[in-house]
């Protein structure tokens, strides 16, 4: 990974997003934020404050109604569906609270899935997936199905998958939300290592203890940024 220079890799400029499902919900009500390359940012706020929406917009899973979202110089608000797919596939790696693993694929196959869509051959991607699983300490669980793994193991498979195409940005949405404290610490240690390796990390959580792993905390409420708390380089 490149060094932690101060150039922003992600920029949000006055981003708005409204959902009209069962009433009008302004999930993003004018948010501006930039993430420097190699930075580690936590987004904190109560449930329903728009944390996941923010993360999804950065990852190209969602598009803004107004404003601009720029990732690696690419404006996602005007990007085509294929360009968004490319962003999701190679620019960012997602880690979800509920893991979101394919239930009928083994650990190796799950980790290799982004590589399938990135055009890798079978042997290469299996090799890469095996290495990544070894890196997260699951070298002995390669052929297990998600149902045969514990919550913490599943989340580590998901982290390995997020790293498959070697994206610069890791987006983690409550990655410790479904695991016990001890396992959560292990997950956070892994994210810390990724940060140390130079990845830009955007972490969503509602727990202060978890957020404190980051360099700064962005506090959101009702779709707006309340304040940004700098925790300093750690």
């Amino acid at each position, binding site marked *: 990974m490149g060094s932690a220079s101060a150039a922003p890799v992600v920029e949000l400029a006055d981003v708005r997003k409204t959902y009209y499902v069962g009433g009008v919900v302004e999930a993003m009500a004018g948010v501006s934020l930039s993430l420097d390359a190699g930075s580690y940012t936590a987004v904190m706020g109560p449930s329903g404050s728009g944390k996941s929406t923010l993360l999804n917009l950065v990852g190209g899973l969602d598009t803004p109604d107004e404003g601009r979202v720029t990732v690696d110089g690419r404006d996602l608000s005007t990007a085509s*569906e*294929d360009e968004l797919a490319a962003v999701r596939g190679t620019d960012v790696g997602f880690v979800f609270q509920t893991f979101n693993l394919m239930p009928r694929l083994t650990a190796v196959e799950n980790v290799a899935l982004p590589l399938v869509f990135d055009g890798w051959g079978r042997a290469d991607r299996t090799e890469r997936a095996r290495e990544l699983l070894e890196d997260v300490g699951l070298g002995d669980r390669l052929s297990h199905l998600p149902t045969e793994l514990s919550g913490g193991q599943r989340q580590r498979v998901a982290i390995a998958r997020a790293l498959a195409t070697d994206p610069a940005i890791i987006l983690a949405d409550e990655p410790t939300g479904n695991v016990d404290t001890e396992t959560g610490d292990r997950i956070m240690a892994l994210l810390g290592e990724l940060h140390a390796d130079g990845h830009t990390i955007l972490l969503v959580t509602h727990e202060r203890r978890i957020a404190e792993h980051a360099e700064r905390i962005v506090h959101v409420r009702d779709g707006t940024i309340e304040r940004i708390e700098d925790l300093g380089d750690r």
Partner: protein
Amino acid sequence: MNPREAVSMAVRSIRSHRLRSVLTVLGIVIGIASVVTFATFGASVEAEVLGDLEGSGANNVYVFASPEDDDGFDRAVQPLFTAYDVNQIRDIDGVRAVVPQGIVQVSAVTHGNETVARQQVTATVPETFSNGSTVAGRPFELGAAEAVVNEEAATGFRENLSVGDELRLELSDGGARNVTVVGIVNGTAGELPVGGFGQQPRIYVPADPFYRTVVESPTVGVNQLAYPQVTVVADPARTEAVEQSVAAYLANESDAGQLKSDDVELVARTSGDFAEQIGDVIGQITRFVTGIAVIALVVGAIGIANIMLVSVTERTREIGIMKAVGARNRDVMQLFLFEAALLGLAGSAVGVPLGLVVGWAATRYAEVSFALAPVWMALAVAVGVLVGVVSGLYPAWRAARVDPIDALRHE
């Protein structure tokens, strides 16, 4: 995404729902098998009938009276063609021989001490045996107490007939005549080429002295022998021309034209005409029945579409995951389309051989020889895959359009 990966993922998905996939494919199997069965059976019957026709003289023009608005298969037995007509036709350019055929009513035929009941024997002229189908002996002579039998008649007695045997014909007018069998034949030039499957036993006797049916010739004004059917043997190079000349003669100057009632039509046909006509009829029936089988295929297609739609709904979350890790819309589309196409292909792969087996069994049962319908078979496979693709198209499109956010929230 590489199509090979898409196929392998589609195969996986099909295999993970074994029972469901089998049941879905079953609909296509039944549809394809029905189409192949009917098409094969139709082709076999057609090949059999046309093969029979090809065997008979291609240079014969068959002249007979047929009820109007009819396909011409019914042989009208009214004696319309007089000796005058026979002579006139013989004079037409390109005609080599004219073979009139009449019916002599009999009540029984005796061979040795065996008597079999028979309704009729055929009265004709020696030219009818000129088609090279004589198996043993020679043609009869006009005016002689002789008979020729076909192989079916020869073997119809407990003791097979052979040349030189005596037959006693009980005529329906009360008299009886002894005739000597002088020849055994396998088909004659005089017969219409539409005898159905297999030959009937036939006994042929000379028109003179056995044939007695007379009518008054309107042209000549005297009583003459009159026949219900006449076969014109033409110069092979001029069969068509002869057919036309004969038809023109029948329409304009013939005794038959004046004798016939209004509801019958005089026709002159070559075996090629018969072949065409029969081919048309069989083709129509085949198409109709096969068309009904296609309905089964459509029902199968709806089954695939239904299952694919269920599958898209069930796998919404998986689609969301794939999109979150970089799958493009067309990748998702491809996955579901391949899955549907594979189901269709599997249906064809099982349905075609099954249809062939059932079609073959049907030809055994109907005692016709088996013929393939390769075009229909290729069509069935293509249709199977197409049915899969088409029925998968809408579900795949739905899958491709799944919004990843909604999909990931989907339980």
